[in-house]
């Protein structure tokens, strides 16, 4: 019984550590998918001139948060409303304010320019997203495993103190 309890404490603390490190994993996934989307869109507009809504519909994303942004964005388009940054990022807590601003500006300009200018706009944003991805990867490496390890160590320490 004692050992089971010890295991549970280590598991709970480890899980909390994983939860904290997940923040960095999810952020990285979000920006990777955003970059992939920008690249796909750039290709589509230059070769087949596919309509924006079709590009969105055909894009497969593994990031729940990015899917949510795309869904909100599609709703704005279909309802004919101006994009609101608060509603675009509704229930999304992984983005910092300046990142939100960049993503908002990216979506706000989609489909509104001719091929030449739209391509330049996308390339400009791709550069910004690449920089964010770089910093997200470093954070993930630095803090991702750190929180996980800290969680397990804390769990072990608790166990030692209790028993």
């Amino acid at each position: 019984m004692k050992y089971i309890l010890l295991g549970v404490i280590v598991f709970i603390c480890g899980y909390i550590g994983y939860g904290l490190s997940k923040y960095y994993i999810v952020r990285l996934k979000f920006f990777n998918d955003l970059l992939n989307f920008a690249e796909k869109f750039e290709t589509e507009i230059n070769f087949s001139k596919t309509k924006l809504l079709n590009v969105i519909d055909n894009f497969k994303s593994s990031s729940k948060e990015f899917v949510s942004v795309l869904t909100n964005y599609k709703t704005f388009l279909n309802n004919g409303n101006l994009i609101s940054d608060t509603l675009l990022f509704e229930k999304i807590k992984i983005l910092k304010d300046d990142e939100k601003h960049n993503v908002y500006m990216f979506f706000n300009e989609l489909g509104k320019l001719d091929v030449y200018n739209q391509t330049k706009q996308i390339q400009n944003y791709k550069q910004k997203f690449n920089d964010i991805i770089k910093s997200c990867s470093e954070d993930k490496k630095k803090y991702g495993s750190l929180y996980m390890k800290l969680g397990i160590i804390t769990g072990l320490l608790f166990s030692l103190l209790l028993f």
Partner: protein
Amino acid sequence: MLKDILDEKIYNIITTKFNYGYLNEIRLRVNNPIVVYVKGQAYFLGENGLTTQENSAIIVTKQMIEDIIFRASEFSIYSINEELKKGYIVLKGGERLGICGTIVSENGEIKTLNKFTSINIRIPHEIKNCSLDAFSFLVDDEGLKNTLVISPPGAGKTTFIRDFVNQLSLRNLSYNVLILDERGEIAGEAKELSVGKFTDVLSFCTKKNGFMQGIRSMSPHIIVTDEIGDFEDILAVKFAGYCGVKVMATIHANNIEDLKYKDGWQDIKNIFERYVVLSKRNGPGTIEGVYGEDFSRLAIWR
């Protein structure tokens, strides 16, 4: 469709405050009142519908124009560059969106159009039987006549030829008709306007290519097309004549006299056997007269 491109408020005014069936055109110019043409008459569009008072009219903003074009492009301006270069977009319901702005050109070639300042939305209407008065002059026992429909812009040329084609089908005159619909206005983008059961539609191609391809692929008895203008169009019409295919076309002019001053007049007069002159006198589609190949009046309604 207008609903897909217009601001909800404006769409509601247009569809609920007056008879939408009589609406011919909507004109939006930046910082100016919205102007609508109803039964050929110009009015301002206000919150309560049509008005002649400028101060109660809705004023067009730059954002309003940009939003309409953005929606008309299905949120993809980059995909309509060819249309922008020509200056218009055709919507799914056959409405034509004429656009003005700044032309961007390079080495004399138009690259695109941006900084939009005006929009002219033309609403196509089916006026049932509007071609009936002239019908018997254009088809007789000998068959179809090469016909040129003449009128100033907005006087119902497209409506007339659409109804004529439909009348052929309604009478089961089994002429194979090919509509060469360069801008998708005659039959609509997806053939949603009534053009009859003996009709094929070749959309969005130039007259030069369309006449050649259409004759080879569909062997029509008659080709119906809108707005012949330049020398290439006249050559395409002549080509149909050499192939034994009849043509019904339209041209911008006020009357027969004006037509004589047009480039290519010598060619035109050798092709066509009937001339139908339309005006807006009693609303778009008013037939003013039908003339024979020697320009003698066969019928006059004035």
